[in-house]
């Protein structure tokens, strides 16, 4: 029984490694296609619209309420230690360094990443990807590369929007509702916020954009057959991307900050 358990664990481990290797090769092939012209700019723009522009209202809404709740919680906590004046930096730094990139990435994964996986999975099941291959064309160039480029651009822009809206949300609660002077709120932000914080958050969002596009495209590309296969691929894409983002966030935070 022990031998069976060890064998089972071993084969699961080998399977996971094989999957990881396959994902790695997929990423390398995608980058090779990205670096070889031509880039399908029309499709990139279309995907920026889908991933970015169509996510703006969701990002603004979530950013605003995140900033507001941070401000509310933060004010109450800082008041206990007599440091209400630091509310602005608390909200801004928390958003810019951490919550902005992570929450934006998770939201975009749920909204756009799942749709990307589903679209590619359906194309796989309907043999549209085979059709592209049989025309002597590289399917990665049409399906994956535009999503990677668009995701990198959109994720950074959406994160910045999230941060700005979040800071404004924090202002609404901290200043308008709780009575902190507006000069204190923004003045302390400009005192404590550094370019390295903004750059660090931007680097995070870039890598999260890559993780999302890579994982979601891979899962769609390698989907199982039928509606069940496509459904499973979509769920796995969102779960796996979310987990990878959270794990990678830890490593990025250790490296960058």
């Amino acid at each position: 029984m022990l031998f069976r358990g060890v064998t089972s664990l071993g084969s699961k481990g080998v399977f996971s490694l094989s999957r990881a290797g396959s994902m790695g090769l997929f990423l390398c092939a995608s980058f090779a296609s990205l670096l070889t012209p031509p880039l399908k700019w029309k499709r990139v723009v279309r995907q920026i619209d889908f991933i970015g522009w169509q996510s703006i209202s969701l990002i603004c809404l979530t950013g605003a309420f995140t900033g507001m709740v941070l401000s509310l919680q933060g004010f109450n906590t800082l008041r206990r230690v007599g440091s209400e004046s630091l509310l602005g930096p608390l909200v801004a730094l928390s958003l810019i360094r951490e919550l902005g990139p992570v929450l934006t990435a998770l939201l975009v994964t749920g909204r756009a990443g799942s749709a990307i996986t589903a679209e590619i999975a359906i194309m796989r099941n309907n043999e549209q990807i085979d059709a592209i291959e049989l025309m002597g064309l590289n399917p990665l160039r049409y399906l994956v590369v535009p999503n990677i480029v668009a995701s990198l651009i959109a994720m950074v822009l959406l994160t910045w929007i999230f941060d700005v809206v979040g800071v404004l949300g924090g202002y609404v609660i901290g200043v308008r509702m709780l009575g902190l002077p507006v000069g204190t709120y923004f003045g302390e932000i400009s005192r404590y916020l550094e370019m390295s914080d903004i750059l660090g958050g931007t680097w995070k969002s870039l890598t999260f954009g890559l993780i999302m596009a890579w994982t979601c495209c891979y899962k769609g590309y390698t989907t199982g057959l039928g509606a069940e296969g496509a459904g499973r691929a979509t769920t796995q894409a969102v779960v796996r991307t979310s987990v990878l983002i959270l794990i990678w966030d830890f490593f990025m935070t250790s490296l960058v900050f």
Partner: protein
Amino acid sequence: MIEVSAVFKKLSGTEVLRGVSLSLERGRFLALIGPSGSGKSVLLKHLAGLIRPDRGHVLIDGVDVGATRGRDLEQLRRRFGFLFQNGALFDSLTSYDNIAFPLREKTDLEEDEIREKVSFVLEEVGLAGTEDKYPSELSGGMVKRTALARALVMDPEIIFFDEPTTGLDPIIAKSMLDLFDACHHRLNLTGVIVSHNVPDIFRIVNRVAMLHDGKAICAEVRDGAIQSDDPVLRQFTEGTQEGPVTYK
């Protein structure tokens, strides 16, 4: 022109092809028939280079398709047209853009030259006037004819059909077969057709290969009739339960 030599292929642990061998000369059509699950579509995808054999060779004019990679494979595929079972049209493109897609991506033709070619092939398949329709707006038969137009627009030498009449009513199915026959003779194509449409398919092919037990049983076809007394082939094409094979 096409030579399949002792091809073996295992998929998901099952050996689907166990030493398939067949050949087809230039300008002739071959029907690939057999029970469901016998590996017809798998074999067809081997011919198009979408699947590589575990053992054996698929040769097209002496070039081993399974061993060809990269640019050489791209060049080889330019000689192919492929009609997928459900058409495989791109949902987000109109009929016109679907057919124009390979021309825009693989040739240096100007847009008005592309328009001329697309209009010509649409006329050939009897779909003039449907350029602006999306695949979701087309009937089953129209989808397949649009897909055929896309397969023909690059002037292929060899065309592969994967169950082109499945799901179509008898009248449309017959008109599709007539269309394939017309294309075969007008364009001097070489073709391989996977079909369940037995015996109607024999009207338009020169040769038949039946997949049975992972191998191919081949025979010539003349005037719509199989020139073979092979009992397995006979039993299948006549659709009888009596014979050497038990069908469940």
